[in-house]
């Protein structure tokens, strides 16, 4: 296994190297530059030139690139040009916020998805099934930027029970942090919860129609036990696979929800970095995403190789 991974490592590093080069080049091709962005609309040419010099933008591109990669290899992400502070701190804080939001949303997806699935599949009352159907259709059809505004209007502006935006980290002040987390995570979760609920409903209905369920019923198993001990375990595997895929969607969707709820995550950081041409922040952030993807691929390959020895010897 170790030799297999060692064989895969060079190609992963090559992908990272190529990605770093592309990210560096593309950012320089985008119009506008950090110096004039920092200098402001009333700056003189002397001011722009001085800022360019201070940021090291007058150095040859190859020098700038090798300097970036060299610093990165030493674990030094350097200071941000425009946003301020250290790039590593900015990315760490943004990542923490985005992960917190995604985990909160994941919790809502599981809770709401399960509720939708169970109620939709098992309720004898037509109106309950109708309500579930309308709710899941609505959650799927209404985009998060509409849901977000509505949630804020109801819970923050009209009822005044939850804050409309901002963040207090859950780990630093759990009681406040959870309240800040509720609306954005619910907004982010709704479409995925609807998808999950529909999959779960179908799965439960299929399982409940199996012969062994009839047998269990005849044997006197209570409906509750039938559902939670027999039907659910059989309906869950495809739903769990779907949940894994939805987690990726949640991370992607977090960018929009962060903007609506002023949530200082990676999406907001990337937007601020791009708007101000903050090269270090954008470069490191994009490379981090590529690294996560490459690592994910490497892990997947490792799992496949572990499961199927033939792959290790190819």
């Amino acid at each position, binding site marked *: 296994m170790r030799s297999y991974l060692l064989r895969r490592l060079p190609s992963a590093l090559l992908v990272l190297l190529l990605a770093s080069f592309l990210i560096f080049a593309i950012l320089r091709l985008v119009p506008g530059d950090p110096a004039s962005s920092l200098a402001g609309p009333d700056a003189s040419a002397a001011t722009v030139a001085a800022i360019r010099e201070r940021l090291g933008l007058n150095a040859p591109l190859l020098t700038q690139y090798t300097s970036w990669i060299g610093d990165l290899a030493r674990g030094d992400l350097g200071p941000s040009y425009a946003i301020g*502070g250290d790039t590593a701190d900015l990315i760490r804080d943004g990542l923490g916020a985005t992960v917190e939001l995604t985990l909160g949303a994941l919790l809502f997806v599981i809770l709401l998805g399960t509720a939708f699935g169970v109620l939709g599949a098992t309720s004898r009352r037509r109106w309950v099934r109708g309500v579930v159907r309308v709710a899941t259709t609505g959650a799927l059809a209404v985009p998060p930027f509409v849901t977000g505004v509505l949630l804020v209007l109801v819970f923050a502006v009209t009822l005044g029970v939850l804050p409309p935006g901002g963040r207090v980290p859950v780990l630093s002040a759990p009681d406040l942090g959870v309240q800040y987390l509720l609306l954005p995570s619910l907004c982010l979760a709704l479409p995925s919860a609807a998808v999950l609920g529909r999959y779960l409903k179908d799965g439960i209905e299929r399982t409940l129609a199996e012969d062994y369920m009839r047998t269990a019923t005849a044997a006197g198993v209570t409906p509750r036990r039938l559902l939670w001990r027999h039907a659910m375990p059989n309906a869950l595997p495809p739903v769990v696979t779907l949940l894994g895929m939805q987690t990726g969607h949640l991370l992607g969707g977090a960018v929009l929800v962060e903007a609506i709820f002023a949530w200082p995550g990676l999406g907001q950081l990337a937007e601020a970095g791009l708007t101000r041409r903050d090269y270090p922040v954008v470069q490191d952030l994009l490379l981090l995403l590529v690294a996560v993807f490459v690592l994910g691929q490497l892990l997947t390959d490792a799992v496949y190789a572990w499961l199927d020895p033939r792959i290790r010897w190819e």
Partner: protein
Amino acid sequence: MTEQYPFTPPDVSRRSTLRAAGAGALLAGLGGLTGCRSAVSEANSSAKEARSQPKRGGILSVAVNTDFTPSLLFAQSSQSYQHRLLYNTLTRYDDGLKPQPELATSWDYAADGRGITLKLRDDVTYHDGRKFTADDVIFAVKNLQNPVRAAQLRATALAVSGFEKRGDHEVVLKLAHPVANLFDLFEFMIITDRHSVEDAVKGTKLNGTGPFRLKKWSPGSGLSLVRNDAYWQPGRPYLDGVELRVMAQADALVSSLRSGQSQLSYQVPGKSLAAVKGNPDLTITSYDTGDGAAYVGVNTTVAPLDDKTVRQAVAWALDRERIVDQTLGGYGLASAAPWPKSSPAFTEAGRTHYTHNPAKARRLLKSAGLTRLRLPLLHLSLPGETAIAESVQYDLKQVGIAVELQPTDPATAQKKLISQDMPALWTMSHGFAQVQPSTLAVSAYPFNEAKNTSKYHSAAYTKVVREAWTTRDTAGAATNAQYRKISGILLDQAFIIDLAIRGRVQVASKKLHGVTLNKFSYLNLDDAYLV
């Protein structure tokens, strides 16, 4: 017929429904974790506790749409609210542009305009306990002379050619020539700790003499400030602290105000002001001194805009009143000249020099041999700016000028502006008309007499600007005559076509009192309190 469910399905009974509802309520009520604080009441509690009269205590939450940018600490930017909270300036202007004491208690401007003697407060300390002295003033001026600081008033700082320290609390600034906008510099220049200035521009240490100390800066979230108990103004500030919350999206910012999470903002977009206006808990105050103006810039090297008749036709074609009403929510002053009403250069004749007169615009175009024209117009790809550009496009279409809009992100537009790379027309905002008129022509790049985006050059403009800038006096008949000459050239040559003075619009909770802004939009909360 096959029965779908060969058993009685586990239905949702009333009891289980109630249980589920209870669980849901528990989830929704996570905020009500037993004995825990409420994030909403946490934000509002300070306001509720206070009653009437100035009273100590409370945290003020200010909603801003851009985060503090430490690298722009010494430049005027769209977010300078924290400057006067953390730092002080040497003097501050009153509404009539008359300087008032702050860290400088008095001043004596030499009759020949070649120096100014400043007497400084001797009871001021920085947040870290160090005493404020004349060396800090000398450093502050030298710091702004450094081009890396991107200070728009660098030209004025560079006019200071020497320093003479007379003890720890008196200093003479020697001037290379008389400077009309010296007190603009003193209003603009924050007095920072000279030992930690490099940390300040990184945002890691903001050590000033202001009424509040930095508690925490969370990039992307905002600034958290606490009262400076050793502030030199006795009994001030009243507030325990200030939070500057970043709400980049306009809807989030407005919701923050409407829900009471924030009590103050200056960045509610024009189109959202109507929604805020009806809220009984909020008040809207417009600062008619203005802090910027929307304009259409003209590249005078692009034919046929090299002919001033065509530029004037554009100026006559624009409906400024409609632009104020529709894009600025009615908060602004339609004006053909750059000056707000508080400026010594303001005249009603200048403001209304160009009014909406499409017939006259068509006549001028015809006299220039043109009936139809196609021109590009660059604008910032932001909602408010796009609305202005579309209004301009509509107006120009009425006189036969087809405008092709070029939405551009701010960073790219800024580079094009500075590098004189703008297309035939562009629309943006300029600052610096709210202070001494000469500052506009030496510090605002679009108007700069030596080099500007319009590539407009004129010996007469350079002469009158230099004369207005290098005079000691800022009032009087001669000075006013120079201001009129500057206005006359700007209006006649129309290389910058002003549209509207954008007044700073303050949306505040009715519980908040005593808030002021300086001419560079530094928030002053010395006397602010919550009732």
